[in-house]
């Protein structure tokens, strides 16, 4: 996957873009009408088109509450954390809807699962445990990307990518 030339992801350095598309722990945050936030484990991200849109995959078994929230207000945030380095990004945007998943998606997620299993093995997550993850069937959530933030722990966490560091 090559780095987009437009949209918020265009400002990412090459290593941060690699972080985005590499194996990572993802959490999708949404909120309900009363502004109660919640997050669930997301699993896999594809950058679509010119980079202004992405598809976030969510195990169907975890999708009930986030989907209810997205249908209410469409606000979503996705954290992407590389387990071995704790380097992290956060994407913010709005829900564009869901789409059908197909064999192409399943193969993409199977590869992603293998890569993440390797990555998590390096931080002590037993393969036998991680293999219990029911990542399929998955729901494909389309997201219009509005902002991307560096989220690696430190004084600059929360700084918008491509802009001067300032805690946000």
């Amino acid at each position, binding site marked *: 996957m090559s780095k987009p030339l437009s949209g918020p992801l265009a400002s990412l350095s090459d290593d941060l873009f690699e972080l985005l598309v590499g194996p990572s722990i993802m*959490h999708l945050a949404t909120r309900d009408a009363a*502004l*109660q936030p919640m997050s669930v484990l997301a699993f896999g991200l594809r950058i679509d088109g010119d980079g202004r849109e992405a598809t976030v995959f969510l195990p169907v078994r975890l999708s009930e509450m986030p989907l209810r929230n997205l249908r209410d207000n469409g606000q979503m945030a996705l*954290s992407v*954390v590389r387990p071995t380095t704790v380097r992290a990004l956060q994407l*913010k945007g709005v829900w564009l809807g869901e789409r059908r998943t197909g064999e192409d998606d399943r193969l993409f997620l199977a590869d992603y699962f293998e890569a993440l299993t390797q990555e998590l093995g390096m931080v002590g997550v037993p*393969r036998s445990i991680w293999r*219990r993850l029911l990542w399929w069937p998955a729901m494909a959530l389309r997201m219009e990307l509005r902002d991307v933030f560096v989220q690696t722990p430190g004084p600059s966490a929360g700084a918008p990518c491509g802009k001067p560091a300032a805690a946000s």
Partner: protein
Amino acid sequence: MIALEDLARCFEGVVPATVSTCSADGVPNVSSISHVQFVDGRHVALSRQFFNKTTRNLLENPRAMVTVWDPVSFDVYALGLRFVRSETSGATYDRMATRIEAIASHTGMSGIFRLLSADIFEVTDILAITQHLAPAEPGTPDLSDLPVEPSKMPPGQRDELWVLHRLSTRMNQAPDLESLLAAVLDGLAEDFGFAHAKVLLVDETGRRLFTVASRGYEESGVGSEVVFGEGLIGTVARDRRPLRVGQMDSNLRYGRAVRAEVTSRAAAGATMAPEIPLPGLPDAQSHLALPLSVRGRLVGVLALESRNPATFETWHEAFLGVVADQVAAGIDRLSVSDVEDPASAARRPPAPAAPRPRRSFIFYQNDDCVFVDGEYLIRNVPGRILWKLLKTHQEQGRSEFTNRELRLDPGLGLPPLRDNLESRLILLRQRLAQKCPDVRLPPRGRGRFAVEIECDLQLDERASG
């Protein structure tokens, strides 16, 4: 509702906890958080090291959710939270600050990676999220793939009070400090299965610890020093609070991520200290260090570590705190005793006539440092003691000494109170055993010891190296 108390091990998960918040205008935010700490049955504390979007959101909207992972089953728990207050002092803050400062110090980030506040949240609900996991396969052990260090004791003998009583008896029977330390470390290994442990005592400067006894390491490390405030053990000594760190790798990765971020941006403009090598096991995954205090005075630190990330549980902290108090009292009792047994007639038989090796000792006056055959042996007070003993033995032929006469010798610079003499002699004996076994200082009952020399001594005193 799931009891918060039942999630204790989740707060040390191998995958960092995640906090989600929401701004007043409805935009969610999600980020990793380094520490979630149990406060009581209805509250948790989240660490805040930096002022960021999470903080701003909480000031606008107190609702939050934290997800934590069970480090064994990898079940996920979602805690619905309501922000209550930020604490910058008090027990919860101090406890969290000690943990964070230890990690910061260990990664050379002291002063940069530090706790701003412990943010207290009311837990409004707890959801177990397990539907994304297939049931465990039959026969899959709960701790699959994780190394374990089970106690070798039969299960029926592992009853905690029984073990405590056994350890207490061992300590009470110890005639001297060396025996006491051996009893403690042996007891921890045999009765608890804590095979890697060491005791460090405060030296005469009051700002440093030195290792006086250890178990379970290839190198004993006796004599190695830790400055107060440096690393995990130094932090415990400085703050005089126990420190339990599980999932060491996870905590270190977090600290190192901060360090890498600061370094790459040079935002702080600060000079960072080099990372302190972890003493002991190079691949330790969990640590428990307890201050040894008597009447508010720190005498040392008891430090345990394990390759198993889940070895030390919450209750161990309190339980071993009782052990630590007894150890501290024992050290205090045996360190100041000036009781002497009468001079004994029993003597080690003279060594058979054989070619004796020649040992060259050099004493450097500028730093009270002793070298043997060109290799560093010991310094400071134990260095001065050794030099006095060797010179007296060579010049006067004496081979038996008392603790009392050392205490009364102003040239040794022992402090008038709490002189640590016993512990310095233990250190000296062990260093000699490692570096020069031809010279020994065996005890001859309470308050008395011998100097046994099975080599030809060459003593040389120099102003500086």
